[in-house]
């Protein structure tokens, strides 16, 4: 056996060569993501042209040409319209939003008393933020404070009439404050009611099942605006003569009714996804119905449908804007009401106001959906294979 004679043996590794120029850096990125095929190339160029045509005027309108400061409609109108801007000018009227900002937040709440909604807002944020961060302990106490104590405190603080606080009737409430109150109450009420309705719909008792099914299907089958009409027109009819229901309360009842039915369907989806073995396991442990639901079924079912629940919340937050149709002044309502303010009426005022309101709504809804995505990923760990 003779060792084979090797002509060449590499004694050290050669340094890695750099990848071809077309395969790295931004050139490769462009080739791969924008110009991969002829079809992609055409699409990208069309999209780029559209952006180039569309984006600069929008940015100009929103920021560069916009009127940022000023005390009246003059800064937002051209000379021909009775203002100071040159002919052909068009831009956002942020001065209008700035001047009306307090109104957009508090509505017609008396100026001297506005520390009260502000205090409620601060309390709300102080309780909500630790609730949302999973690492912070004492969730139980936190939940009781947020969903039990805060509504009561807010009720007395906002409405007043006790402890020497001046009484502020709900007709004066408005703006973002009303939007937030409506959706918060809707959320707090609709979750338990939705769970009860969902359990009722899956109950073995035919009468209860039927009542719950009919309620859910009717409310889900009609538009919210008819529910609000019903609440605002028919609720007073249903009450004994002489008894009146506050207009704000009527809207609250309407929104809560509506949200409960949608929430019930979401929760039912979760209940249906729980394997039968879980129910049987709970039964075999000797748990009663409510114990079974509270300790075994609902924790699993609700966890499964968190995205659906948050989607219902988002939907409800958006839907609160409908109360402006039954002449209440939520954020959208108060913004629209200010269009007719003679001090600020100009062709660009409505668009600016709506963009402001839209951005505010968007911020809240987008935040909620992002948070739901975060929670979903966090809770998902147990199910990952």
């Amino acid at each position, binding site marked *: 056996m003779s060792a084979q004679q090797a002509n060449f043996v590499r004694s050290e590794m050669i340094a890695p060569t750099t990848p071809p120029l077309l395969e790295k850096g931004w050139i490769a990125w462009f080739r791969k993501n924008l110009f991969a095929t002829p079809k992609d190339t055409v699409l990208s160029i069309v*999209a780029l042209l559209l952006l180039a045509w569309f984006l600069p005027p929008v940015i100009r309108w929103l920021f560069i040409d916009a009127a940022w400061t000023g005390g009246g409609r003059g800064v937002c109108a051209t000379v021909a319209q009775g203002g100071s801007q040159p002919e052909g000018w068009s831009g956002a009227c942020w001065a209008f939003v700035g001047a009306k900002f307090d109104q957009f937040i508090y509505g017609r709440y008396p100026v001297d008393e506005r520390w009260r909604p502000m205090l409620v807002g601060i309390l709300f944020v102080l309780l909500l933020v630790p609730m949302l961060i999973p690492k912070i302990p004492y969730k139980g106490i936190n939940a009781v404070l947020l969903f039990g104590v805060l509504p009561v405190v807010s009720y007395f603080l906002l409405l007043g009439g006790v402890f020497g606080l001046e009484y502020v009737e709900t007709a004066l409430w408005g703006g973002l404050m009303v939007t937030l109150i409506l959706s918060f109450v809707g959320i707090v009420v609709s979750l338990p009611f939705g769970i009860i309705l969902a359990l009722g719909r899956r109950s073995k008792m035919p009468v209860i099942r039927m009542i719950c099914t009919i309620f859910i299907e009717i409310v889900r089958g009609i538009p919210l605006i008819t529910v609000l009409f019903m609440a605002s027109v028919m609720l007073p009819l249903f009450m004994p003569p002489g008894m009146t229901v506050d207009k704000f309360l009527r809207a609250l009842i309407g929104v809560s009714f509506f949200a409960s039915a949608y929430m019930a369907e979401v929760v039912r989806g979760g209940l249906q996804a729980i394997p039968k073995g879980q129910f049987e396991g709970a039964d075999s442990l000797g748990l009663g119905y409510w114990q079974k639901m509270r300790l075994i079924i609902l924790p699993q079912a609700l966890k499964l449908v968190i995205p659906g629940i948050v989607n219902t919340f988002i939907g409800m937050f958006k839907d609160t804007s409908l109360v402006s149709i039954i002449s209440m002044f939520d954020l959208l309502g108060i913004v629209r009401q200010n269009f007719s303010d003679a001090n600020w009426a100009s062709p660009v005022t409505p668009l600016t106001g709506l963009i402001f309101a839209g951005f505010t709504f968007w911020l809240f809804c987008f935040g909620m959906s992002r948070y739901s995505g975060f929670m979903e990923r966090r809770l998902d760990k147990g199910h990952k294979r």
Partner: protein
Amino acid sequence: MTVDVTIPPGKNRQTSSFLNDPKVRGYLYQAITILVLAIAVIWITQNTIENLKRANIASGYGFLSGRAGFDVGQSLIAYTSDSTYGRALVVGFFNTLLVAVTGIFTATIIGFIVGIGRLSKNWLIAKLSMVYVEVFRNIPPLLVIFFWYSGVLAVLPLPRDSLALPLDMYVNNRGLAFPRPVFDNGAQFTFYAFVLAVIASIAFVRYANKKQMETGKRPPVLWVVLGMVIGLPLLTFLVTGMPISFDVPIAGKFNLTGGSVVGPEFLSLFLALSFYTAAFIAEIVRAGIRGVSHGQSEAAHALGIRPGLTTRLVVVPQAMRIIIPPLTSQYLNLTKNSSLAIAVGYADLVAVGGTILNQTGQSVEVVSIWLVVYLTLSLSTSLFMNWFNAKMALVER
């Protein structure tokens, strides 16, 4: 040693209290529920009757034959302020249908384009689609309606400086004017020809499918169908001496004359509902396509099927099964959201009903009409979609 624990037969089987029997408890709970509900209903009915009597409102649907006395902006059937309340409600109902059907049509198209766009490998298209979805999903539809109504359409120029669009259309702050087709004598034949062509096309597609199953060869379906559906009516149109002309809007000194006009109310509602619902449809489409397992398209590629055909024959049919149920509920949502018409004064069912309610005070009756109409719409849409869904469902062995 074994202990005999069999319960002796007979009357001693009942070992615990009668009240702990779940069955008995069930009956008890249901009886209590019915009782509470009945009391509540009786209480509410009595209050309502009392309140109506005090307000001097006669209950019943007799008011429907009374004179309406208000005008509606846009109507598909003949209507004047002398028409009855009942007819006004019918006008509203047709207006609801009109905006719902046109809205569903556009929303589906935009939604599918954006949904497929989000899955595109093209970074720019995917991001643009994402921005579209995230913007419109998180804004109230009512705000989108106002955006079009008071933000865009209201600041358009006056009729005398109307903006000209292609196809002889004009847009101004009073709405969109477009050429109105005028049907002369003999126009019906073109319509008949169209119906005939559609029927013939369906027959031809069936024949083609059969032929393909038998011989493996597929006749050129697309060209034949296109030829029939476009060619046949066109031929009839020419043969009968071109009986359809267009009443084109003409820009005059102060106003447009001729043509048909749809008001800004309809336009803003239609645009808003289409754009808003499209964002949701896009997400449904994306989820549907992603729900088809990747192995399916890989298997199709392995069989040598071309990418275009893979999409059409393998991915889309399976994706449709996932897409259709949520799509149905989006269609229903759009129909229900069309009730936001009342905010801009488009005379849909809810807006007309609201006016009647204010005029007559017949709130119970008007609300009951709303309930019946919307529930019927909801139920019939979901019945149709269930049928369609059953047809599209995978036939499993």
